């Protein structure tokens, strides 16, 4: 692949990278910094790009790593490694929303546009959960693509993703409560 082809292919993806950076940072000025950092890194290591591979995915990987590094800089040297794995994540997450279905909260939530509340809630998730949900649920990548972008095995993607969804659902339950859909004093479900 010639340098010109690389430039063309990678620069054509800037809108995608910006959107991804916005989803990760939820802040226009931080997203801009992140896009710039992503492109500086991409161009410095352009030889590592495999011709024929997915430029968008490659850029997302770089962008997500740059995002993690910016968080580390902000927060000192906290470890962003997985907390734990586990097979209970899927069921635990589903069981949580089972409660919302059971007490009617889910019904009420189903009639509202959840996207604005969820967008806020994503911004409150910590890493590595935020990236997992952004890469799979917001950007629509498969588990396998996410595994490549996040640089972890598929099992880890699933476990992070399911835990992220569970945290988001917990926030939705708070949101429902704040919106007056009390789940404490239960009313009969009509």
């Amino acid at each position, binding site marked *: 692949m010639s340098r010109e082809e690389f430039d063309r292919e990678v620069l054509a993806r800037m809108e995608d990278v910006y959107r991804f950076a916005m989803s990760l940072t939820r802040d226009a000025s931080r997203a801009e910094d992140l896009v710039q950092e992503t492109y500086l890194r991409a161009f410095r290591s352009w030889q590592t790009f495999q011709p024929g591979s997915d430029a968008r995915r490659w850029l997302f990987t770089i962008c997500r790593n740059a995002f993690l590094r910016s968080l580390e800089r902000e927060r000192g040297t906290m470890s962003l490694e997985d907390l734990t794995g586990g097979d209970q994540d899927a*069921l635990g997450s589903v069981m949580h929303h089972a409660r919302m279905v059971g007490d009617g909260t889910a019904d009420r939530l189903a009639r509202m546009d959840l996207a604005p509340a969820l967008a806020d809630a994503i911004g409150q998730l910590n890493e590595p959960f935020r990236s997992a949900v952004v890469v799979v649920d917001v950007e629509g990548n498969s588990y396998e693509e996410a595994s490549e972008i996040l640089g972890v095995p598929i099992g880890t993607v699933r476990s992070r993703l399911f835990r992220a969804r569970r945290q988001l659902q917990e926030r939705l339950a708070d949101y429902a409560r704040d919106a007056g859909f009390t789940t404490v004093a239960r009313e009969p479900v009509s």
Partner: protein
Amino acid sequence: MSKPTCDCTTAMAQLWDYLDEELTEERYEMVKEHLANCAHCLPHAEFAQGFLSALGRCRHAGQMPEGVRHAVMDALKREGLV
């Protein structure tokens, strides 16, 4: 030969994988079959589906400001990368 079937716990444990279309075809059909016949699990699946589609709508919709491309190109030039 009877169709493979599953109980509620098994179906719910695979619900996310099912909705994400990450199951093998056989398992996918098994969960689908269960949901079609289980009044207990179906509302959970519907709620989860609505939740995931709302997440999909969280994609940033705005255009990238024109200034971003200029700033990136300037930075690349400054570093001698283009």
